[in-house]
């Protein structure tokens, strides 16, 4: 297409374009495969996986907020083994990068996950140190640089695949956390996971979510995500996958300019199932109009 090059390599993961479906918003790809050809995507980060199957949190699990949503799914998933057996073969039938999103309650869980996923047919592992909807593990590791350093350096030893560490925005200084991940051996960081929030129904005087609090995503959080990507890009050398409220090509360009090498979209797809495809098309259009030959030229291109 007009000689523009959308390819990007994130720490060894080859993407034919920098647009990836965000974890938890795209299941294992089956549902959206009926809406568009998954081959269009750069990659898919699958639903957050754990060692054993998890039931997740009680409903309601979603609340609408101004230009955003809260979710409190709580990592419902069939367990990593079922994923490997039943979902990878389906996903492999497409020519896209498969990123396995992994969570755990303990460091040993994370080690187990990275080990088993390293011998599975995935392209990269996204270590979820940032889910706000589960009591143990996850965000509690991800909110301190010590926690992140410890988990990442431990699992790095077991990792036979590129390791992406997914960061929580619910911290005082995200650059400190990103640096801890980098020092511990992360090949990339992805950010942001959701911001902890809450919605109340004044009529019933009750929280809307069954789990009381949930994670905020969608356009509302974009300014925060963009700032964090920008700050982290100044703090680490490893590539960044940016996300948080991206809905179209222009949003994606903004994240690339701020310093991301690729982007993920989740929530926007709920509103528009073509959001991923339209984001790729919008990015192409921007590149053509602005005479950008390769997407790599945009990365960190902010004039500030």
């Amino acid at each position, binding site marked *: 297409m007009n000689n523009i090059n959308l390819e990007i390599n994130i720490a060894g993961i080859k993407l034919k374009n920098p647009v990836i479906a965000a974890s938890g918003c795209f299941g294992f790809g089956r549902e959206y495969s009926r809406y568009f050809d998954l081959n269009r995507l750069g990659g898919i980060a699958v639903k957050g996986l754990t060692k054993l199957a998890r039931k*997740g949190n009680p409903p309601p*699990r979603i609340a609408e*907020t101004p230009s*955003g949503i809260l979710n409190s799914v709580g990592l419902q998933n069939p367990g990593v083994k079922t994923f490997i057996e039943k979902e990878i073969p389906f996903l492999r039938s497409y020519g896209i990068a498969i990123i396995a999103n992994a969570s755990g309650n303990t460091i040993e869980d994370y080690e187990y996950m990275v080990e088993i996923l390293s011998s599975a047919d995935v392209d990269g592992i996204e270590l979820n140190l940032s889910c706000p909807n589960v009591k143990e593990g996850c965000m509690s590791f991800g909110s301190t640089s010590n926690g992140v350093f410890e988990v990442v350096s431990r699992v790095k030893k077991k990792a036979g695949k590129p390791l992406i560490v997914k960061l929580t925005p619910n911290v005082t200084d995200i650059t400190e956390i990103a640096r801890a991940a980098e020092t511990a051996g992360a090949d990339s960081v992805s950010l942001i996971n959701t911001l902890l929030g809450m919605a109340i129904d004044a009529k019933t005087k009750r929280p809307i979510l069954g789990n009381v609090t949930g994670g905020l995503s969608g356009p509302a959080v974009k300014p925060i995500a963009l700032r964090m990507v920008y700050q982290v890009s100044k703090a680490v050398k490893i590539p960044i996958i940016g996300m948080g409220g991206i809905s179209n090509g222009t949003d994606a360009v903004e994240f690339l300019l701020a310093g991301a090498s690729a982007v993920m979209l989740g929530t926007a797809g709920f509103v528009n199932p073509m959001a991923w495809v339209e984001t790729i098309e919008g990015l192409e259009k921007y590149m053509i109009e602005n005479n950008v030959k390769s997407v790599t030229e945009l990365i960190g291109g902010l004039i500030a």
Partner: protein
Amino acid sequence: MNTIYKIVKSEKLNIDTFLLTVESEKIAKKSRPGQIVHIKCGNGTEAYLRRPISICSVDREKGTFDLAIQIRGKGTKILSCLKAGDDIDVMGPLGQGFSLYPRHKKIIAVGGGIGIFPLLQLLKDHPAQNKKAILGFRTRSLIILENEFRQSCNELLIATDDGSYGEKGFVTELLKKEVEKELPDMVFICGPTVMMKAGVELLKKHNIPCEVSMEQRMGCGIGACLVCVCKIKKDDDWNYTQICKSGPVFSGDEVIFD
């Protein structure tokens, strides 16, 4: 995948409910009674998420379908302002509809509140000879689609909470009387959770199969995000199962109502 259709008609049914007729060959042809659509309300982020609405009835000849919508909040309010000729962004048909088995000769459809809507096309399409509908409304002035229902079944019973029309009381009480009169082969129940729960318990005693249509807040509408779940029995255990994909219709005995 195209999701943009034209509105053919918008009609007020009662103080807060309206009927939207939308042109779509695809949805009219493909949809089964009980299935839903997922609608974008307005162009912007004002009502950010799509809204799930049951297909109320379809005209397969004309290639149109009807939605009966109650104004509850921002999104349904936006939809109520649409007029003939306007575009509407609709994903669907989605989910699993009611079971239409020829072996079910005598059926009863029980609905309360917005739960009555999916029952209309069910009654139209069901092959049973004997179709009865029991519909509940708060009060006389809120009764809607009465003629449409009457024409689609053999007998229509209406209950109002205040007795201002039909029987006074809950639809489940009427159901109880009907069942005790003569056992149906199958019952379909759609309405508030308490109502469905009571109905399912009642029918269990009589060993009559039934289906219910579950409601939950939704995100993607197609099964990918796992937000719209209810508890569904699985072997000796249960799973949180997506209402948008495996439902909204479930067999009454597989649902765990908390």
